[in-house]
Protein backbone atom coordinates (compact mmCIF):
# COMPACT_ATOMS: atom_id res chain seq x y z
CA UNK A 1 0.00 0.00 0.00
CA UNK A 2 2.57 2.52 1.15
CA UNK A 3 5.03 1.32 -1.46
CA UNK A 4 2.61 2.36 -4.17
CA UNK A 5 2.01 5.66 -2.45
CA UNK A 6 5.69 6.52 -2.22
CA UNK A 7 6.13 5.53 -5.84
CA UNK A 8 3.15 7.59 -6.93
CA UNK A 9 4.41 10.65 -5.08
CA UNK A 10 7.93 10.20 -6.32
CA UNK A 11 6.90 10.93 -9.84
CA UNK A 12 4.34 13.56 -9.00
CA UNK A 13 5.07 17.11 -9.99
CA UNK A 14 1.69 18.75 -9.59
CA UNK A 15 -0.35 18.73 -6.38
CA UNK A 16 -1.93 15.35 -6.05
CA UNK A 17 -4.80 14.13 -3.99
CA UNK A 18 -3.55 11.98 -1.16
CA UNK A 19 -4.64 8.44 -1.78
CA UNK A 20 -5.69 7.54 1.68
CA UNK A 21 -7.60 4.37 2.27
CA UNK A 22 -9.32 3.56 5.53
CA UNK A 23 -6.80 0.77 5.90
CA UNK A 24 -3.99 3.32 5.85
CA UNK A 25 -5.77 5.30 8.50
CA UNK A 26 -6.13 2.29 10.78
CA UNK A 27 -2.47 1.35 10.27
CA UNK A 28 -1.41 4.91 11.05
CA UNK A 29 -3.58 5.02 14.16
CA UNK A 30 -2.04 1.75 15.30
CA UNK A 31 1.46 3.12 14.75
CA UNK A 32 0.52 6.32 16.55
CA UNK A 33 -0.90 4.54 19.58
CA UNK A 34 1.95 2.08 19.86
CA UNK A 35 4.66 4.71 19.54
CA UNK A 36 2.90 6.87 22.12
CA UNK A 37 2.89 4.00 24.62
CA UNK A 38 6.48 3.16 23.72
CA UNK A 39 7.42 6.81 24.20
CA UNK A 40 5.83 6.91 27.66
CA UNK A 41 7.74 3.80 28.70
CA UNK A 42 11.03 5.06 27.29
CA UNK A 43 10.73 8.50 28.88
CA UNK A 44 9.70 7.08 32.27
CA UNK A 45 13.04 5.29 32.33
CA UNK A 46 15.11 8.33 31.45
CA UNK A 47 17.17 9.33 34.48
CA UNK A 48 16.17 12.67 35.99
CA UNK A 49 19.76 13.75 35.69
CA UNK A 50 19.27 13.97 31.95
CA UNK A 51 15.89 15.65 31.62
CA UNK A 52 17.42 18.81 30.19
CA UNK A 53 19.38 17.08 27.39
CA UNK A 54 16.31 14.89 26.85
CA UNK A 55 14.26 18.00 26.11
CA UNK A 56 16.90 19.25 23.69
CA UNK A 57 16.84 15.81 22.06
CA UNK A 58 13.06 15.51 21.71
CA UNK A 59 12.96 19.08 20.49
CA UNK A 60 15.33 18.18 17.70
CA UNK A 61 13.38 14.98 16.97
CA UNK A 62 10.12 16.94 16.74
CA UNK A 63 11.69 18.87 13.88
CA UNK A 64 11.25 15.68 11.87
CA UNK A 65 8.51 17.93 10.45
CA UNK A 66 11.28 19.00 8.09
CA UNK A 67 10.36 15.87 6.13
CA UNK A 68 6.83 17.20 5.68
CA UNK A 69 8.25 20.51 4.51
CA UNK A 70 10.47 18.69 2.01
CA UNK A 71 7.48 16.79 0.65
CA UNK A 72 5.53 20.03 0.16
CA UNK A 73 8.59 21.57 -1.53
CA UNK A 74 8.72 18.69 -3.98
CA UNK A 75 5.02 18.77 -4.79
CA UNK A 76 4.04 22.37 -5.10
CA UNK A 77 4.62 24.75 -7.97
CA UNK A 78 2.92 27.67 -6.29
CA UNK A 79 5.35 30.42 -5.27
CA UNK A 80 3.74 31.24 -1.93
CA UNK A 81 3.58 27.62 -0.86
CA UNK A 82 7.15 27.11 -1.93
CA UNK A 83 8.20 30.00 0.29
CA UNK A 84 6.17 28.62 3.22
CA UNK A 85 7.72 25.18 2.80
CA UNK A 86 11.23 26.59 2.41
CA UNK A 87 10.74 28.61 5.59
CA UNK A 88 9.62 25.37 7.25
CA UNK A 89 12.79 23.60 6.10
CA UNK A 90 14.97 26.48 7.35
CA UNK A 91 13.27 26.62 10.76
CA UNK A 92 13.25 22.85 11.23
CA UNK A 93 16.86 22.39 10.15
CA UNK A 94 17.96 25.18 12.49
CA UNK A 95 16.28 23.27 15.29
CA UNK A 96 17.69 19.93 14.26
CA UNK A 97 21.24 21.19 13.97
CA UNK A 98 21.27 23.28 17.14
CA UNK A 99 19.37 20.57 19.04
CA UNK A 100 21.75 17.75 18.30
CA UNK A 101 24.88 19.83 18.90
CA UNK A 102 23.40 20.96 22.20
CA UNK A 103 22.57 17.41 23.31
CA UNK A 104 26.16 16.39 22.64
CA UNK A 105 27.43 19.45 24.52
CA UNK A 106 25.24 18.83 27.58
CA UNK A 107 25.77 15.09 27.97
CA UNK A 108 29.53 15.64 27.80
CA UNK A 109 29.25 17.79 30.94
CA UNK A 110 28.21 14.77 33.00
CA UNK A 111 31.23 13.03 34.45
CA UNK A 112 31.46 10.25 36.99
CA UNK A 113 33.55 10.35 40.13
CA UNK A 114 37.20 10.77 39.19
CA UNK A 115 39.08 7.49 39.47
CA UNK A 116 42.77 7.99 40.19
CA UNK A 117 43.18 11.28 38.40
CA UNK A 118 41.06 14.36 39.06
CA UNK A 119 38.24 15.13 36.65
CA UNK A 120 39.08 17.98 34.37
Amino acid at each position, binding site marked *: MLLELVAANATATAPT*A*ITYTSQDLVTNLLIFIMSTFLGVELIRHVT*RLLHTPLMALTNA*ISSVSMIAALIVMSETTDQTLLILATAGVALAS*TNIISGFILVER*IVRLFKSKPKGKPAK
Partner: protein
Amino acid sequence: MTIDPAYILALYVVAVVLFILSLRFMSDVKTSRWGGRSAALGMALGVVATLLAYQIQRVDLLVGAILIGFVVGTPIALRVATTALPQRTAISQAFGSLAVALVGAAEFYDYNTTANTFTLSVLSAEMILGFLTFAGSCIAFAKLQELIPGRPFVYPGKNFVSIAILIVAAAVGVVLVAEPSQTILLPIMAALALVFGFLLVMGIGGADMPTVIAILNAYTGMSAAALGFVLNNKLLIVAGSLDGSSGFVLALIMSQAMNRSFTNVLFGGVGAKVTKAAAGAVAAQARPVQSLGASDVATILENARSVVIVPGYGMAVAQAQHTIKEVGDLLQEKGIDVKYGIHPVAGRMPGHMNVLLAEANVPYDQLWEMEKINPMFPETDVAIVVGANDVTNPAARTKSDSPLYGMPIMNVDKAKTVIFIKRSMSPGFSGSDNELFYLPNTWMVFGDAKKVLSDLVAALKAT
Protein backbone atom coordinates in the same frame (compact mmCIF):
# COMPACT_ATOMS: atom_id res chain seq x y z
CA MET B 1 16.43 8.38 -11.31
CA THR B 2 14.04 5.94 -9.83
CA ILE B 3 14.64 4.27 -6.54
CA ASP B 4 12.85 1.18 -5.38
CA PRO B 5 10.40 2.48 -2.75
CA ALA B 6 11.28 -0.50 -0.60
CA TYR B 7 14.73 1.00 -0.02
CA ILE B 8 13.16 4.27 1.04
CA LEU B 9 10.96 2.45 3.53
CA ALA B 10 13.92 0.44 4.78
CA LEU B 11 15.75 3.70 5.51
CA TYR B 12 12.65 4.95 7.36
CA VAL B 13 12.61 1.78 9.44
CA VAL B 14 16.28 2.24 10.37
CA ALA B 15 15.55 5.87 11.27
CA VAL B 16 12.68 4.80 13.53
CA VAL B 17 14.89 2.25 15.30
CA LEU B 18 17.58 4.89 15.81
CA PHE B 19 15.05 7.34 17.31
CA ILE B 20 13.81 4.70 19.75
CA LEU B 21 17.37 3.71 20.67
CA SER B 22 18.31 7.34 21.22
CA LEU B 23 15.63 7.70 23.91
CA ARG B 24 16.71 4.37 25.40
CA PHE B 25 20.30 5.62 25.59
CA MET B 26 19.14 8.53 27.74
CA SER B 27 18.16 6.16 30.54
CA ASP B 28 21.75 6.09 31.76
CA VAL B 29 24.42 8.75 31.86
CA LYS B 30 26.97 6.19 30.64
CA THR B 31 25.15 5.61 27.36
CA SER B 32 23.74 9.12 26.98
CA ARG B 33 26.43 10.26 24.56
CA TRP B 34 24.98 7.89 22.02
CA GLY B 35 21.51 9.37 22.50
CA GLY B 36 22.07 12.50 20.48
CA ARG B 37 24.27 10.77 17.95
CA SER B 38 21.87 7.98 17.09
CA ALA B 39 18.93 10.37 16.79
CA ALA B 40 21.02 12.65 14.57
CA LEU B 41 21.87 9.70 12.34
CA GLY B 42 18.21 8.69 12.26
CA MET B 43 17.22 12.20 11.26
CA ALA B 44 19.85 12.30 8.53
CA LEU B 45 18.64 8.97 7.13
CA GLY B 46 15.03 10.14 7.23
CA VAL B 47 15.86 13.34 5.37
CA VAL B 48 18.00 11.55 2.77
CA ALA B 49 15.31 8.91 2.20
CA THR B 50 12.71 11.65 1.72
CA LEU B 51 14.92 13.53 -0.72
CA LEU B 52 15.39 10.31 -2.69
CA ALA B 53 11.67 9.57 -2.78
CA TYR B 54 10.47 13.09 -3.54
CA GLN B 55 12.50 14.90 -6.11
CA ILE B 56 12.76 18.58 -5.29
CA GLN B 57 13.06 20.84 -8.33
CA ARG B 58 14.25 23.93 -6.49
CA VAL B 59 17.54 22.58 -5.14
CA ASP B 60 18.73 26.17 -4.68
CA LEU B 61 15.98 26.88 -2.14
CA LEU B 62 16.63 23.57 -0.38
CA VAL B 63 20.36 24.14 -0.04
CA GLY B 64 19.77 27.75 1.01
CA ALA B 65 17.29 26.71 3.72
CA ILE B 66 19.60 24.05 5.13
CA LEU B 67 22.52 26.49 5.05
CA ILE B 68 20.43 28.93 7.08
CA GLY B 69 19.87 26.07 9.51
CA PHE B 70 23.60 25.56 9.90
CA VAL B 71 24.48 29.23 10.11
CA VAL B 72 21.80 30.03 12.68
CA GLY B 73 21.73 26.73 14.56
CA THR B 74 25.40 26.07 15.18
CA PRO B 75 26.28 29.29 17.05
CA ILE B 76 23.07 29.05 19.12
CA ALA B 77 24.01 25.55 20.27
CA LEU B 78 27.67 26.32 20.90
CA ARG B 79 27.29 29.67 22.62
CA VAL B 80 24.25 29.32 24.84
CA ALA B 81 25.18 29.35 28.52
CA THR B 82 23.90 26.45 30.59
CA THR B 83 22.01 28.93 32.76
CA ALA B 84 20.14 30.04 29.62
CA LEU B 85 19.09 26.54 28.54
CA PRO B 86 15.41 27.07 29.48
CA GLN B 87 15.21 30.11 27.18
CA ARG B 88 17.00 28.21 24.43
CA THR B 89 14.53 25.38 24.75
CA ALA B 90 11.60 27.79 24.57
CA ILE B 91 12.89 29.60 21.50
CA SER B 92 13.72 26.40 19.68
CA GLN B 93 10.22 25.18 20.43
CA ALA B 94 8.99 28.40 18.85
CA PHE B 95 11.04 27.58 15.74
CA GLY B 96 9.83 23.99 15.63
CA SER B 97 6.19 24.85 16.11
CA LEU B 98 6.30 27.67 13.57
CA ALA B 99 7.79 25.19 11.10
CA VAL B 100 4.94 22.69 11.61
CA ALA B 101 2.35 25.45 11.50
CA LEU B 102 3.71 26.88 8.23
CA VAL B 103 4.00 23.45 6.64
CA GLY B 104 0.46 22.67 7.75
CA ALA B 105 -0.75 25.89 6.14
CA ALA B 106 1.14 25.12 2.93
CA GLU B 107 -0.39 21.66 2.81
CA PHE B 108 -3.83 23.06 3.40
CA TYR B 109 -3.53 25.45 0.46
CA ASP B 110 -2.00 22.67 -1.59
CA TYR B 111 -4.67 20.07 -0.91
CA ASN B 112 -7.75 22.12 -0.05
CA THR B 113 -9.52 21.23 -3.27
CA THR B 114 -8.60 17.56 -3.36
CA ALA B 115 -8.28 16.28 0.20
CA ASN B 116 -11.01 14.56 2.15
CA THR B 117 -12.65 15.85 5.31
CA PHE B 118 -10.44 13.76 7.57
CA THR B 119 -7.24 15.19 6.14
CA LEU B 120 -8.57 18.73 6.32
CA SER B 121 -9.72 18.28 9.92
CA VAL B 122 -6.34 16.94 10.98
CA LEU B 123 -4.64 19.83 9.20
CA SER B 124 -6.84 22.42 10.89
CA ALA B 125 -6.23 20.91 14.32
CA GLU B 126 -2.53 20.72 13.54
CA MET B 127 -2.42 24.40 12.56
CA ILE B 128 -4.26 25.52 15.71
CA LEU B 129 -1.83 23.47 17.80
CA GLY B 130 1.19 24.74 15.87
CA PHE B 131 0.29 28.41 16.04
CA LEU B 132 -0.74 28.36 19.70
CA THR B 133 2.51 26.57 20.57
CA PHE B 134 4.44 29.17 18.60
CA ALA B 135 2.87 32.10 20.46
CA GLY B 136 3.14 30.27 23.78
CA SER B 137 6.80 29.43 23.25
CA CYS B 138 7.61 33.03 22.34
CA ILE B 139 6.00 34.25 25.57
CA ALA B 140 7.75 31.52 27.57
CA PHE B 141 11.00 32.69 26.02
CA ALA B 142 10.26 36.33 26.86
CA LYS B 143 9.45 35.40 30.46
CA LEU B 144 12.51 33.21 30.92
CA GLN B 145 14.75 35.82 29.32
CA GLU B 146 13.04 38.37 31.61
CA LEU B 147 12.04 40.56 28.70
CA ILE B 148 8.63 40.65 30.35
CA PRO B 149 7.76 40.09 34.03
CA GLY B 150 7.55 36.42 35.00
CA ARG B 151 4.51 37.03 37.15
CA PRO B 152 1.28 35.59 35.70
CA PHE B 153 -0.90 38.10 33.91
CA VAL B 154 -4.37 37.62 35.36
CA TYR B 155 -7.62 39.51 35.11
CA PRO B 156 -11.19 38.63 36.00
CA GLY B 157 -12.60 36.05 33.62
CA LYS B 158 -9.17 35.26 32.19
CA ASN B 159 -9.83 31.56 31.71
CA PHE B 160 -13.26 32.24 30.25
CA VAL B 161 -11.82 34.61 27.65
CA SER B 162 -8.98 32.21 26.78
CA ILE B 163 -11.25 29.20 26.40
CA ALA B 164 -13.76 31.25 24.40
CA ILE B 165 -11.03 32.25 21.96
CA LEU B 166 -9.96 28.63 21.59
CA ILE B 167 -13.55 27.57 20.95
CA VAL B 168 -13.98 30.28 18.30
CA ALA B 169 -10.70 29.18 16.68
CA ALA B 170 -11.96 25.58 16.63
CA ALA B 171 -15.30 26.74 15.19
CA VAL B 172 -13.52 28.63 12.42
CA GLY B 173 -11.55 25.44 11.81
CA VAL B 174 -14.77 23.45 11.48
CA VAL B 175 -16.15 25.93 8.94
CA LEU B 176 -12.84 25.80 7.10
CA VAL B 177 -13.08 22.02 6.84
CA ALA B 178 -16.67 22.24 5.60
CA GLU B 179 -15.86 24.99 3.09
CA PRO B 180 -12.18 24.48 2.20
CA SER B 181 -12.38 26.99 -0.63
CA GLN B 182 -12.88 29.81 1.91
CA THR B 183 -9.12 30.01 2.46
CA ILE B 184 -9.49 33.48 4.00
CA LEU B 185 -10.63 31.68 7.16
CA LEU B 186 -7.20 30.10 7.58
CA PRO B 187 -5.35 33.27 8.67
CA ILE B 188 -8.29 34.11 10.97
CA MET B 189 -8.02 30.71 12.62
CA ALA B 190 -4.25 31.07 12.87
CA ALA B 191 -4.58 34.51 14.48
CA LEU B 192 -7.07 33.21 17.06
CA ALA B 193 -4.74 30.31 17.89
CA LEU B 194 -1.87 32.77 18.31
CA VAL B 195 -3.94 34.92 20.66
CA PHE B 196 -4.93 31.86 22.69
CA GLY B 197 -1.31 30.71 23.01
CA PHE B 198 -0.27 34.22 23.99
CA LEU B 199 -2.93 34.52 26.71
CA LEU B 200 -2.36 30.98 27.96
CA VAL B 201 1.34 31.41 28.71
CA MET B 202 0.97 35.06 29.81
CA GLY B 203 -1.23 33.69 32.60
CA ILE B 204 1.44 31.27 33.85
CA GLY B 205 4.18 32.27 36.25
CA GLY B 206 7.95 31.88 35.84
CA ALA B 207 8.32 29.00 38.28
CA ASP B 208 5.76 26.92 36.37
CA MET B 209 7.87 27.13 33.21
CA PRO B 210 9.32 23.60 33.62
CA THR B 211 5.83 22.21 33.14
CA VAL B 212 4.89 24.70 30.43
CA ILE B 213 7.87 24.05 28.20
CA ALA B 214 7.34 20.32 28.59
CA ILE B 215 3.70 20.67 27.49
CA LEU B 216 4.64 22.91 24.55
CA ASN B 217 7.24 20.30 23.58
CA ALA B 218 4.47 17.71 23.55
CA TYR B 219 2.29 19.92 21.33
CA THR B 220 5.07 20.31 18.75
CA GLY B 221 5.45 16.54 18.67
CA MET B 222 1.70 16.04 18.28
CA SER B 223 1.66 18.50 15.39
CA ALA B 224 4.46 16.61 13.66
CA ALA B 225 2.53 13.36 14.14
CA ALA B 226 -0.57 15.04 12.69
CA LEU B 227 1.43 15.99 9.59
CA GLY B 228 2.41 12.34 9.37
CA PHE B 229 -1.27 11.37 9.28
CA VAL B 230 -1.94 13.91 6.54
CA LEU B 231 0.99 12.82 4.38
CA ASN B 232 0.62 9.13 5.29
CA ASN B 233 4.23 9.24 6.43
CA LYS B 234 5.02 6.68 9.13
CA LEU B 235 8.33 8.21 10.18
CA LEU B 236 6.61 11.49 11.01
CA ILE B 237 3.97 9.66 13.04
CA VAL B 238 6.48 7.66 15.07
CA ALA B 239 8.92 10.52 15.73
CA GLY B 240 6.10 12.97 16.44
CA SER B 241 4.32 10.71 18.90
CA LEU B 242 7.57 9.77 20.68
CA ASP B 243 8.15 13.48 21.16
CA GLY B 244 4.56 14.08 22.15
CA SER B 245 4.57 11.41 24.83
CA SER B 246 7.95 12.62 26.07
CA GLY B 247 6.58 16.12 26.61
CA PHE B 248 3.49 14.85 28.41
CA VAL B 249 5.46 12.49 30.67
CA LEU B 250 7.88 15.27 31.63
CA ALA B 251 4.99 17.67 32.26
CA LEU B 252 3.33 15.01 34.40
CA ILE B 253 6.51 14.44 36.43
CA MET B 254 6.85 18.20 36.92
CA SER B 255 3.29 18.80 37.99
CA GLN B 256 3.36 15.77 40.31
CA ALA B 257 6.48 17.22 41.90
CA MET B 258 4.42 20.33 42.64
CA ASN B 259 1.37 18.33 43.71
CA ARG B 260 -0.70 20.07 41.06
CA SER B 261 -2.72 19.01 38.06
CA PHE B 262 -2.06 20.02 34.45
CA THR B 263 -5.20 22.14 34.52
CA ASN B 264 -4.05 23.92 37.63
CA VAL B 265 -0.67 24.70 36.09
CA LEU B 266 -2.24 25.94 32.86
CA PHE B 267 -5.16 27.87 34.28
CA GLY B 268 -4.44 28.25 37.99
CA GLY B 269 -2.38 31.44 37.75
CA VAL B 270 -0.39 30.42 40.85
CA GLY B 271 1.94 33.16 41.96
CA ALA B 272 -0.44 35.90 40.90
CA LYS B 273 -1.46 36.53 44.48
CA VAL B 274 2.09 37.42 45.44
CA THR B 275 1.22 40.99 46.39
CA LYS B 276 -1.33 39.90 48.94
CA ALA B 277 0.75 37.08 50.36
CA ALA B 278 3.88 39.25 50.33
CA ALA B 279 2.11 41.71 52.59
CA GLY B 280 1.60 38.84 55.00
CA ALA B 281 5.27 38.01 54.70
CA VAL B 282 6.23 41.56 55.63
CA ALA B 283 4.19 41.25 58.80
CA ALA B 284 5.85 37.91 59.44
CA GLN B 285 9.29 39.44 59.16
CA ALA B 286 8.88 40.63 62.69
CA ARG B 287 9.37 37.01 63.75
CA PRO B 288 12.93 36.47 64.91
CA VAL B 289 15.42 34.63 62.74
CA GLN B 290 19.02 33.73 63.53
CA SER B 291 21.64 34.93 61.13
CA LEU B 292 25.32 34.21 60.77
CA GLY B 293 28.38 35.36 58.84
CA ALA B 294 30.53 33.23 56.56
CA SER B 295 33.27 32.53 59.11
CA ASP B 296 30.75 31.12 61.63
CA VAL B 297 29.31 28.93 58.88
CA ALA B 298 32.81 27.64 58.14
CA THR B 299 33.18 26.64 61.80
CA ILE B 300 29.84 24.81 61.78
CA LEU B 301 30.79 23.00 58.57
CA GLU B 302 34.18 21.94 59.84
CA ASN B 303 32.55 20.20 62.75
CA ALA B 304 30.12 18.34 60.49
CA ARG B 305 30.58 14.87 59.11
CA SER B 306 27.90 14.96 56.44
CA VAL B 307 26.69 17.91 54.40
CA VAL B 308 23.88 18.08 51.84
CA ILE B 309 23.77 21.05 49.48
CA VAL B 310 20.31 21.93 48.12
CA PRO B 311 20.49 24.29 45.13
CA GLY B 312 17.62 26.16 43.50
CA TYR B 313 16.98 28.66 40.75
CA GLY B 314 18.75 31.36 42.82
CA MET B 315 21.99 29.46 42.29
CA ALA B 316 21.56 29.75 38.53
CA VAL B 317 20.71 33.45 38.79
CA ALA B 318 23.82 34.12 40.89
CA GLN B 319 25.91 31.84 38.61
CA ALA B 320 27.13 30.26 41.83
CA GLN B 321 27.49 26.64 40.67
CA HIS B 322 31.29 26.79 40.40
CA THR B 323 31.64 28.36 43.84
CA ILE B 324 29.33 25.71 45.29
CA LYS B 325 31.55 23.02 43.83
CA GLU B 326 34.58 24.75 45.42
CA VAL B 327 32.89 24.67 48.83
CA GLY B 328 31.98 21.02 48.29
CA ASP B 329 35.56 20.13 47.33
CA LEU B 330 37.06 21.91 50.35
CA LEU B 331 34.67 20.08 52.64
CA GLN B 332 35.52 16.75 51.02
CA GLU B 333 39.21 17.44 51.48
CA LYS B 334 38.46 17.76 55.18
CA GLY B 335 36.92 14.31 55.10
CA ILE B 336 33.31 15.50 55.17
CA ASP B 337 30.72 13.60 53.12
CA VAL B 338 29.14 15.96 50.57
CA LYS B 339 25.99 15.29 48.56
CA TYR B 340 23.83 17.49 46.38
CA GLY B 341 20.06 17.13 46.74
CA ILE B 342 18.03 18.09 43.68
CA HIS B 343 14.30 18.79 43.78
CA PRO B 344 12.58 17.81 40.50
CA VAL B 345 11.26 21.34 39.85
CA ALA B 346 14.34 23.25 41.02
CA GLY B 347 15.29 25.65 38.25
CA ARG B 348 13.34 26.72 35.20
CA MET B 349 13.32 23.50 33.21
CA PRO B 350 13.38 19.79 34.01
CA GLY B 351 16.83 18.66 35.10
CA HIS B 352 18.29 22.17 34.95
CA MET B 353 20.21 22.00 38.28
CA ASN B 354 21.92 18.75 37.28
CA VAL B 355 23.31 20.34 34.13
CA LEU B 356 24.58 23.41 35.98
CA LEU B 357 26.34 21.30 38.61
CA ALA B 358 27.69 18.90 35.99
CA GLU B 359 29.11 21.91 34.18
CA ALA B 360 30.88 22.88 37.40
CA ASN B 361 32.43 19.37 37.34
CA VAL B 362 30.37 17.92 40.16
CA PRO B 363 30.46 14.16 39.49
CA TYR B 364 26.95 12.99 38.68
CA ASP B 365 27.06 10.26 41.33
CA GLN B 366 27.07 13.07 43.91
CA LEU B 367 23.75 14.40 42.59
CA TRP B 368 20.84 12.87 44.52
CA GLU B 369 17.18 12.86 43.60
CA MET B 370 14.71 14.11 46.18
CA GLU B 371 13.22 10.68 46.97
CA LYS B 372 16.66 9.23 47.63
CA ILE B 373 18.08 12.08 49.68
CA ASN B 374 15.04 12.78 51.87
CA PRO B 375 15.44 9.70 54.12
CA MET B 376 19.05 10.76 54.76
CA PHE B 377 18.34 14.23 56.16
CA PRO B 378 17.86 13.06 59.79
CA GLU B 379 21.44 11.71 59.71
CA THR B 380 22.75 14.83 57.98
CA ASP B 381 24.71 17.27 60.11
CA VAL B 382 24.34 20.33 57.91
CA ALA B 383 22.02 21.10 55.00
CA ILE B 384 23.01 24.15 52.95
CA VAL B 385 20.18 25.70 50.94
CA VAL B 386 21.35 27.93 48.10
CA GLY B 387 18.80 29.87 46.11
CA ALA B 388 15.95 27.45 46.76
CA ASN B 389 12.92 28.43 48.79
CA ASP B 390 9.47 26.93 48.26
CA VAL B 391 10.87 23.43 47.71
CA THR B 392 12.23 23.46 51.27
CA ASN B 393 9.18 24.94 53.02
CA PRO B 394 7.94 22.55 55.73
CA ALA B 395 4.51 24.22 55.45
CA ALA B 396 4.00 21.86 52.50
CA ARG B 397 3.85 19.02 55.02
CA THR B 398 2.16 20.70 57.95
CA LYS B 399 -0.02 23.70 57.04
CA SER B 400 -3.10 22.62 55.16
CA ASP B 401 -3.98 26.25 54.30
CA SER B 402 -0.64 26.86 52.58
CA PRO B 403 -0.65 27.06 48.76
CA LEU B 404 2.26 24.64 48.93
CA TYR B 405 0.42 22.05 51.02
CA GLY B 406 0.91 18.54 49.68
CA MET B 407 3.86 19.38 47.48
CA PRO B 408 6.76 16.98 47.99
CA ILE B 409 9.65 18.98 49.45
CA MET B 410 13.29 18.52 50.37
CA ASN B 411 13.11 17.69 54.09
CA VAL B 412 16.06 19.91 54.99
CA ASP B 413 14.38 20.88 58.26
CA LYS B 414 15.11 17.34 59.50
CA ALA B 415 18.86 17.96 59.26
CA LYS B 416 20.64 18.79 62.51
CA THR B 417 21.58 22.26 61.24
CA VAL B 418 20.27 24.21 58.25
CA ILE B 419 22.28 26.97 56.61
CA PHE B 420 20.01 29.05 54.39
CA ILE B 421 21.78 31.38 51.98
CA LYS B 422 19.39 34.03 50.72
CA ARG B 423 19.41 37.62 49.62
CA SER B 424 16.53 38.77 51.81
CA MET B 425 13.51 37.50 53.70
CA SER B 426 11.26 37.79 50.63
CA PRO B 427 8.88 34.87 50.10
CA GLY B 428 9.33 32.31 47.35
CA PHE B 429 7.41 32.15 44.11
CA SER B 430 4.31 30.75 45.79
CA GLY B 431 4.14 33.87 47.94
CA SER B 432 4.21 31.84 51.13
CA ASP B 433 6.52 32.63 53.98
CA ASN B 434 9.06 29.85 54.56
CA GLU B 435 8.53 28.26 57.98
CA LEU B 436 12.05 26.93 57.78
CA PHE B 437 13.52 30.39 58.47
CA TYR B 438 12.17 30.44 62.02
CA LEU B 439 13.21 26.97 63.14
CA PRO B 440 15.72 26.84 66.01
CA ASN B 441 18.16 24.79 63.93
CA THR B 442 18.11 27.21 60.98
CA TRP B 443 20.78 29.84 60.46
CA MET B 444 20.20 32.45 57.78
CA VAL B 445 23.13 33.85 55.84
CA PHE B 446 22.01 37.00 54.03
CA GLY B 447 23.64 38.04 50.80
CA ASP B 448 24.18 37.18 47.15
CA ALA B 449 24.73 33.42 46.86
CA LYS B 450 28.00 33.74 44.98
CA LYS B 451 29.38 36.38 47.36
CA VAL B 452 28.45 34.36 50.46
CA LEU B 453 29.91 31.17 49.03
CA SER B 454 33.15 32.92 48.01
CA ASP B 455 33.49 34.24 51.56
CA LEU B 456 32.83 30.73 52.79
CA VAL B 457 35.56 29.35 50.52
CA ALA B 458 38.00 31.93 51.91
CA ALA B 459 36.99 31.11 55.48
CA LEU B 460 37.35 27.37 54.90
CA LYS B 461 40.77 27.85 53.31
CA ALA B 462 41.90 29.98 56.23
CA THR B 463 41.51 27.15 58.70
